[in-house]
């Protein structure tokens, strides 16, 4: 019997849920994480001036809500890279990789779909963790902002999936146990403009920021954290940029992973 794409997603979802069920302390760390990160950033930020100065420098109306949400955004956006790109490394380490590749499904489908539920749930929990903080500071408006940001996080995941699948395929072919994404995620955080404006970055990094999906998610998060009356145009621009990047990255991934199965089997990388 062959698994359908829905079966592969179901298996990924099942393992994540069982893992969380059997590791209940993980709930605590997932929910405390954005607050620790936001608290740390605000502490460092206020060491250089007041919250108002920070607000002016970063360009958001409510720095506290923004920092909580931004921490959630970064966590949620990058979790897809961690989950999908590191999936092969993790499976190889645990020893499940050959058994996953022995299931009657194509390698690209497995690489793409199996880690998705974990990434989806991880993103959601990251932002849901930020929700109580946002509601405490701003009430219903805070919740609305988080909801809007969550939408952009999921949109931002689309191009990151393509990028992550390319990394996962490369990891599978070259038979490395290196976490290739480990240098990529800090770089994305650095240039995405989450903790300071992109305009203060050198031109090369500004150009790099333009092709990193997280940048547009952060842009949308900033808009969501600063608007008083909703303006649709800036959000549409961010959404359009993310869609364009999604087409580019996923198109490249589709070409790249076509030869993965053969390359892996030739090199004996499993």
């Amino acid at each position, binding site marked *: 019997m062959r698994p359908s794409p829905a079966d592969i997603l179901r298996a990924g979802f*099942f393992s994540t849920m*069982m893992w969380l069920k*059997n590791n209940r302390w993980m709930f605590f760390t997932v929910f405390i994480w954005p607050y620790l990160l936001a608290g740390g950033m605000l502490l460092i930020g206020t060491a250089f001036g007041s919250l108002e100065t920070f607000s002016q420098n970063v360009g958001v109306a409510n720095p506290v809500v923004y920092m909580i949400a931004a921490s959630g955004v970064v966590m949620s956006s990058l979790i897809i890279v961690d989950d999908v790109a590191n999936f092969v490394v993790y499976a190889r380490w645990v020893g499940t990789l*050959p058994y996953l590749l*022995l299931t*009657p499904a194509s390698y690209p489908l497995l690489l793409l779909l199996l880690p998705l539920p974990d990434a989806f749930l991880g993103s959601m929990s990251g932002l849901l963790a930020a929700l109580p903080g946002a509601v405490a500071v701003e009430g219903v408006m805070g919740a609305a902002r988080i909801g809007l940001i969550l939408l952009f996080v999921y949109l931002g995941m689309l191009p990151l999936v393509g990028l992550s699948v390319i990394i996962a395929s490369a990891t599978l072919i070259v038979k490395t146990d290196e976490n290739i994404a480990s240098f990529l995620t800090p770089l994305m955080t650095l240039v995405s403009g989450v903790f300071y404006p992109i305009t203060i970055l050198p031109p090369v990094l500004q150009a790099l920021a333009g092709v990193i999906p997280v940048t547009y998610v952060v842009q949308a998060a900033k808009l969501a954290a600063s608007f008083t009356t909703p303006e649709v145009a800036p959000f549409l621009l961010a959404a359009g940029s993310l869609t364009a990047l999604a087409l580019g990255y996923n198109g490249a991934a589709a070409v790249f992973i076509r030869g993965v199965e053969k390359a892996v089997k030739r090199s*004996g990388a499993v």
Partner: protein
Amino acid sequence: MAAISVRNLVKTYYTTERRGFLKRRKIPVRALRGVSFEVRRGEVFGLLGPNGAGKTTTIKIITTLLLPDSGKAEVLGVDVIRDPVRAREVMGVTLSVERGFFWKLTGRENLKYFGILRGMRGEELEKRIDKVLELTGLRDLGGEHKLFEEYSLGMKARLALARAMLHDPPLLILDEPTLGLDPHSARTIRSLLVRLAREEGKTVLITTHNMFEADLMCDRVAIINKGVIVAVGTPAELKARIAGRLGMEFLVRAPPAVDVRSVIQRALSKAEVSVEPTQEGLRVRLVIRPEEEEKTLERVTEALAAVGGRVRQVRVQEPTLEDVFIALTGGGGVEAVTG
């Protein structure tokens, strides 16, 4: 139609040798040099060979995890190279009994995960999980709701076998399924595999270097050495190949620094020697002609005495499958024989 048909498989690997910080050199390793054999439907077939002989490479090609440089392999008429996805549907595989599961999931949860990945669902999946837990004895051992990280090696082996059987495949391919297991677990797994072949008509292909195991459970065996099949037949047929010879076994004690194998090999220039450590000392096994018995005993005793060792026990018996293996492969790499 054969359950498994392997024809002229050739595979060369490239390993990398580091020569300084940046310099590397690729070294070709010819793992398979034209391996051919057939496994009949409903039989338990053993692929025997010393370490590095090509057993696992052969298994990986048959199970679609590796592409050969040339040659062909079919499972139940399906070409594993041209149609790997269909080939994977008809086989259940175990590659390592120790790993391959999620540590933080229970035995049942792990099976359910892999079952879903086989397209199984609902009551059908739950019933199959119940059946394989029952068959492997994991339920009686309390493994169903225990986290995999708390499993003993014997339980891990049973769970690996349970996963291989989960989708009820007609073909089971198991790479060293009893390696490192205690005698009781090994016996349970052996008898289950034989029962599956006899009662349910499953075809079982196992690799092992446990000659006792192969002799006991395999209908036929193939001996592979240095990437080539050197013999195929029933254990009785293979033993007949060295009819008229005897297996001579020594239990010896020697200082740790002494390479007993080399010492005995020097004393008996043409003999094929197998050495394995046991609780009581080193177990040395030779294949000899009946008229050589006295001379062999004398030479081995003298050679060992010269390096500070001694013979504690000697036993001479009819040749076993292990003796055939020693005679055909030179005895290299034979590992612990567990009962």
